[in-house]
């Protein structure tokens, strides 16, 4: 088993901003906070699967905020994650339509110094649609776009893993895939707005 040390908030944020340290940061967050934060869900009408789903969602949001420089460190990482977890789970309870009593209980229990993260949390539904659109591109498009944009691979590296004649063919394919995705997004104004929120905050 890999030995994972606890990281200070500063080390954690540095690791998230450096792509090479992201896995290390994620593992440290799981080690330090998963049990505590999953309890928040499991103790409020949720089950283990709910807790895992919400925690993943919170992490995606948190990392996005840190990488965009929108986490300003006004609260500790733990407090911030706690707040995001609460809001995300509350939104999910609302969506499930059994929130009234729980919401009341939840809001009463909210600490006064807890940061308000409600505006930072991107709609779950919209994010699901983003995932679905990328899936619809097909495996090849998805692979090329992820390797190029998310993994920062060069065209030469991408070519090595795919059966194309040369880099230019891969470049053209990448362009077509991106345009295809762009058109799919354009066709969904709600999704367009959500992505604008992700992009610009």
């Amino acid at each position, binding site marked *: *088993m890999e030995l994972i040390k606890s990281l200070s908030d500063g080390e954690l944020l540095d690791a998230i901003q450096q792509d090479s340290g*992201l*896995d290390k940061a*994620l*593992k440290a967050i*799981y*080690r330090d906070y*998963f*049990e505590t934060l999953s309890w928040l869900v499991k103790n409020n009408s949720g089950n283990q699967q709910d807790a*895992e789903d919400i*925690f*993943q969602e919170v*992490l*995606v949001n948190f*990392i*996005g905020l840190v990488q965009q420089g929108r986490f300003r460190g006004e609260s500790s990482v733990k407090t911030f994650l706690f707040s995001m977890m609460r809001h995300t789970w509350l939104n999910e309870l609302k969506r499930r339509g059994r929130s009234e009593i729980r919401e009341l209980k939840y809001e009463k229990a909210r600490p006064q110094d807890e940061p308000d993260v409600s505006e930072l949390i991107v709609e779950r539904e919209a*994010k699901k649609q*983003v*995932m679905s*659109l*990328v899936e619809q591109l097909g495996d090849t498009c*998805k692979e090329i*776009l*992820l390797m*190029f*944009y*998310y*993994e920062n691979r060069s065209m030469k590296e991408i070519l090595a893993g795919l059966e194309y004649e040369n880099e230019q063919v891969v470049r053209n394919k990448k*362009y077509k895939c*991106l*345009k295809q*995705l*762009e058109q799919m*997004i*354009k066709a969904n104004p709600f999704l*367009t707005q959500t*992505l*604008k929120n*992700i*992009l610009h905050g």
Partner: protein
Amino acid sequence: MDNSTQYELVKYLDGEMTESEKAEFEQKLATDEQLKMELESLQLAKAAVLHYGLKERVSDVHGQMMKELKTEAPVKKMGNVRRIIRYSVAVAASVLLVFLAIEGYNFYRLSPNRLFAENYTAYELSTTRDGAAAPETAIEKAYRQKDYSVVIRLNATSVLTVKDVFLTAMSYLETGDVARAISNYQVVLADAGAGNNPMLKDVTDYYLALAFLKNRDFDEAIALMNAIQSNPAHLYKEKFSSRYINRVKRLKWR
């Protein structure tokens, strides 16, 4: 939008322009609203890819960490049998702990004087005398009156019977002079032990064993107590149980 502009847009989006190309393109962007909207659309598509990539990465780490965390802290589901065994062991351990605590406390409180006091019964002279019996000696009289100092004084000045010597030993024991009590008991045994007076021998054995105990002569005390206990005909056999003798043995460890 022509192919050349499309090519430029993607090149800008991907950060592949030189500084001069970038500056020139940004001038165009500032004046061309259509171009700006096209760029924003492509940026949204890129943001969707980045979001997808991040979600996948978190999901990968999540899978790894769930395995790891579950390995570290497995949820143990006990079966009924296992639960019963566990509780039984816990109860047994608790009982053992209480037992050890009591034994420890008893061991702490154990002392020769305490054991002596538990077993000791003062010797009483018989009050029923028939006419044929020898007259009561001065020592017997003084002992009956519990005048132990007189008994001891008479011992030094009188011609004594073996019973007088026994009563003198008893008087020394009563007054706390254990060493002299032991000497006198041993004199009695030298005489009565030859089969002259079995009843006096048995009672002397009993008090001598207790005198040894009080005098911290544990080996002698234990040997004599064992001899008394193992002799079915001994009059004081019941006075020394195995438990009592074991407690005397424990005194040696203190």
